[in-house]
């Protein structure tokens, strides 16, 4: 019986014909005119620049205008490793961006900390800001970033105006954590080669 009740609830929230068409229109326009905010901190930013330049040219996918102000951007592209000292900076940049907004985590370091499993480095920017698309690679080639952008288009086109959870950006507590502490520890655990290093020196 519980199952049926849930289904009814979803049916009540799910978009009707008119709202669905409106979603299509809005998502189409959003996906095809993304304004990226580059947050380049390392070698990934070089590949990002190549992606923006004439040979690969992400303006072909609607990212004609790069916004170097977070207040006029809707995609934050973190290209490169993020040290803890920059964590409050990227958080503030994210907070300054108006909704709707998305985040692309470009490269191994931004996504997981990469080879920098040490005291100074954030182990994945998803411990700081919510991430929509992870682009693997060290650094990813421009084709890889473009594929990530296309995946983001796909994701945006599947969104619904009725889904309030998509626009929820409230931190978990007053200290600004957006994930529970044990989840952050779990995400940040060593993997790959770094399991051979030990916490005690």
């Amino acid at each position, binding site marked *: 019986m519980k199952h049926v009740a849930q289904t009814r609830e979803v049916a009540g929230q799910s978009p009707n014909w008119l709202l669905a068409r409106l979603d299509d229109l809005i998502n189409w326009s959003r996906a095809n005119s993304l304004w990226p905010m580059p947050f380049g901190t390392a070698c990934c930013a070089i590949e990002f620049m190549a992606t923006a330049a004439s040979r690969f040219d992400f303006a072909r996918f609607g990212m004609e205008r790069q916004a170097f102000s977070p207040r006029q951007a809707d995609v934050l592209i973190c290209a490169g490793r993020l040290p803890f000292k920059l964590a409050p900076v990227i958080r503030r940049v994210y907070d300054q961006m108006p909704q709707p907004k998305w985040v692309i985590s470009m490269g191994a370091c931004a996504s997981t900390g990469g080879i920098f499993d*040490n005291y100074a480095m954030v182990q994945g920017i998803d411990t*700081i800001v919510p991430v929509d698309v992870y682009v693997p690679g060290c650094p990813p080639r421009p084709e890889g970033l473009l594929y990530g952008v296309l995946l983001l288009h796909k994701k945006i086109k599947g969104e619904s105006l009725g889904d309030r959870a998509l626009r929820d950006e409230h931190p978990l507590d007053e200290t600004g954590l957006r994930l529970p*502490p044990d989840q952050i520890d779990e995400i*940040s655990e060593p993997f790959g080669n770094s399991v051979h290093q*030990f916490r005690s*020196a």
Partner: protein
Amino acid sequence: MNPSVDALRATFGTAIGRATVARDGETVVSVGAERLRDACQWLRDTPGQQYDYLVDLTAVEYRDRERPLEVVYFLRSLERRADLRVKVELDPAVDLAVDSVVSLWAGANWLEREVYDMFGITFRGHPDLRRILMWETYAEGYPLRKEFPLRGRFSRAEQVRQALAANPEAHYSLEELSIADAYQELPPDMKERLRNGERGDLPNSE
């Protein structure tokens, strides 16, 4: 062997420890911590020495726990085209402190701050001794010391919490870069340009 070593020995006597020639041909001389600043001043000001340029200042901790920490001064005489490395040994069990050389070479300011930040070595008489790479509220210790764990002392969640609590604007102000402090020493044309800049009111401007 750099002849400055013998001159140092003649002047400072037993404060000068052993001297070696490193593999790259540079002379490395050890100086007692209590005479370090005097020796540096002597090396800078004495005619025939004239080590007027501090190339680098750094510190070493060896894997062998019995060996003391070393602070290394890379000196160069632009006039005479000569190089000299001066080392000071500091025993962590006693006191990790040495006199600052900022008053001799202004460029030592940030270098000493970096050594303080990474190794916890105190420089007596430094005008502004605080962390430079890590943020000022960083509480985990001194990252380049051998007893410091690679991933830091706190859990990752605690590290994220403390990092997010830091104020990002506390680190990148004009004051941090000392531009405002250096205003009086700037050439007149640069002063004029700054006066019309977006900042508007510089301290001590007329």
